[in-house]
């Protein structure tokens, strides 16, 4: 898994000589995917605020403009709806846009262009047009960002049929899901775990590497309970599993990787093993995607459930200032407690 947390400065994504490929951070893996795919397919372009000369506020796109020029790596005006809406038009016109929304919280400004437009254009046009558009956006808490920057609103997009929603938690998946997203003929929201950008490193296949959507990843096996999560919360679950192991509780950890489409089969299989599950997410409890996970499991595996599925989620409050976010977010401690109760049920 390579969950080492070294914080070395990110190098430019140029493939090193074979045999010596270093581990990459999630940020580097995303950048590598963009570099490679823009090289492979000249229709691919990157647009968004500050993505060009600056390389994005997280420097994910650093170097891209120098390499591929300002026509394909474009700084846009400060207007999210037009970034998404224009991306749809660009796609219809034969480009393959990868739009960056600076933070997922600011997709709020573009909601009417995402669910009602991007997502429905294939359907509305009866297949005449499709929106091969990827929207990249960092999200999630734990790094003391200002208001709106950590908003975890992924569940809302699950009510917008026509888009897909994917959320990598590891460098290899970051690359593989992004390449899959860019090539997918349908619109994909690709959600980047900002708190893991530089802190999680791992091996990443060189060159072409895709991960199919709708396939979850069992990142840790265990017979007593399964912890289900996506994006940064997967790492909280791994830490919780470590702690539980000290008490002899064997917790599995399932990374959904994509929430739309959902890997129902993988989910059910993971739960059936122990009959016990905890779902963890950074979004508020009520109406979070954890509810869908539970509703699905109880529908598909009712007979195998030996305990209620608990949710460890953010509170049903607005996101507080960074200094208070630890009281708001799910924590390892809360996950461990929920898992223990579940196992003991």
């Amino acid at each position, binding site marked *: 898994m390579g969950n080492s947390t070294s914080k070395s400065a990110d190098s430019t994504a140029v493939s090193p000589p074979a045999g010596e490929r270093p581990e990459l951070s999630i940020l580097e893996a995303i950048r590598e995917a963009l570099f490679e795919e823009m090289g492979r397919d000249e229709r691919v*372009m990157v647009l968004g605020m500050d993505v060009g000369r600056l390389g994005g506020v997280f420097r994910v796109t650093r170097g891209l403009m120098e390499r591929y020029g300002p026509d394909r790596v474009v700084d846009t005006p400060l207007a999210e709806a*037009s970034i998404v809406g*224009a991306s749809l038009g660009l796609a219809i016109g034969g480009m393959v*846009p990868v739009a960056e929304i600076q933070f997922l919280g600011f997709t709020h400004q573009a909601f009417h262009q995402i669910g009602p437009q991007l997502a429905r254009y294939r359907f509305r046009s*009866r297949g005449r047009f499709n929106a091969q558009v990827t929207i990249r956006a960092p999200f999630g808490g734990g790094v003391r960002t200002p208001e709106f920057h950590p908003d975890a609103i992924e569940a809302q997009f699950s009510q917008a049929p026509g888009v897909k929603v994917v959320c990598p938690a590891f460098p290899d998946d970051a690359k593989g899901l992004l390449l899959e997203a860019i090539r997918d003929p349908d619109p994909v929201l690709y959600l980047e775990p900002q708190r893991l950008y530089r802190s999680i490193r791992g091996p990443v296949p060189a060159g072409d590497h895709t991960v199919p959507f709708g396939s979850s990843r069992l990142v840790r096996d265990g017979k007593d309970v399964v912890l289900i999560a996506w994006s940064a919360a997967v790492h909280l679950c791994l830490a919780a599993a470590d702690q539980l192991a000290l008490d002899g509780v064997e917790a599995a950890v399932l990374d959904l990787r994509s929430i739309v489409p959902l890997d129902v089969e993988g989910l059910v299989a993971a739960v059936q093993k122990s009959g016990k599950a905890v779902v963890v997410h950074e979004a508020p409890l009520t109406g979070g995607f954890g509810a869908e996970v539970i509703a699905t499991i109880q529908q598909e595996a009712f007979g195998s459930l030996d305990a209620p599925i608990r949710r460890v989620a953010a509170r049903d409050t607005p996101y507080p200032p960074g200094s208070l976010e630890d009281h708001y977010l799910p924590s390892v401690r809360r996950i461990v407690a929920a898992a223990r109760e579940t196992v003991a049920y």
Partner: protein
Amino acid sequence: MLDVEGRISGSSPMSRGQVLEALRLMLLSRAVDDRLIKLQRMGRVGVYGPVHGQEAAVIGSAMALDPQRDWMVPASREHPAMLRHGLPLKNMFATYMGNFEAAAIPDGVRLLPRQQSIGAQLPHAAGLAWALKLRQVRGVVAVYFGEGASSEGDFHEASNLAGVMRVPLVMLLINNHYAISTPASRQSAAPSLARRAEGYGFPGFEVDGNDLLAVYATTLEAVNRALAGEGPTLIECRTYRMGFHNTSDNPKEYREPSEVAEAERRDPIERVRRYATAEGLWSTEQEATTMDEIRAEIDAAQAQVEELPRPGAASIFKHVYASLSPRLEQQRAEAIDEST
């Protein structure tokens, strides 16, 4: 250029053939309005919003486009423009007669679907024009929207982006003076919406939207600017929605008969009819023949749609994604099962 009596000032920017084509389209448009309203009253059409009164604005602008080269991005009240641009009449009827499979825009027709979320098509049009520019494809994008739409954030963001990227976009603001019941005077305090273009760094023009020739000439100029790489143009076509907003609406509830009477005096079709007649291009006989042809066309389109199989449950699972997830496969199977 054409006054209400149909007198021209200056020389016509349209050839004789174009004038005839436009007049025919205008007559077709009004006949389509009548038919679809009739079908709606019979319960065979859901909701229909007529073009009535806006024919010069919509057709004059469409005539300045080359369907083999340019793209059209409609709002929802520009059927004759869509027909001119290549949409078969049958497909248009299918839209309103509830057969969305048959309504689809055929391959090769450079036209986007109608947009019912007011203003949402504007950034699409800007993006599409941007793609033409990036790919160095010769052509322009013409986008239609109402004065109501011009109040939406999407109008602003799309205009500004189009200005910054200097894309080949022709923005056709059809100011028909109403957004449902809301008069243009309530929509904005600006005396001219065309002037907003300055705030985006490109030119804006106001034109009598009931003057076919003026609309055509102004649009053509904008198309040429765009083709020359000079970027977007905003054209405000000032016209009047002579009919109801749509078949659920009754404008008597919110506007004065005198206002409508004045608009009738300025009817865009009558002007062209007079002009064409004065030029010796048109006669009552010709009109009668044309109307017969049009009625036959409409009858045929309607009949064709009526004969088509109606889409069923499976249809709603088509084109959701390129391929269905297992969950959607299951829902599809259920839906088909339940519908039989």
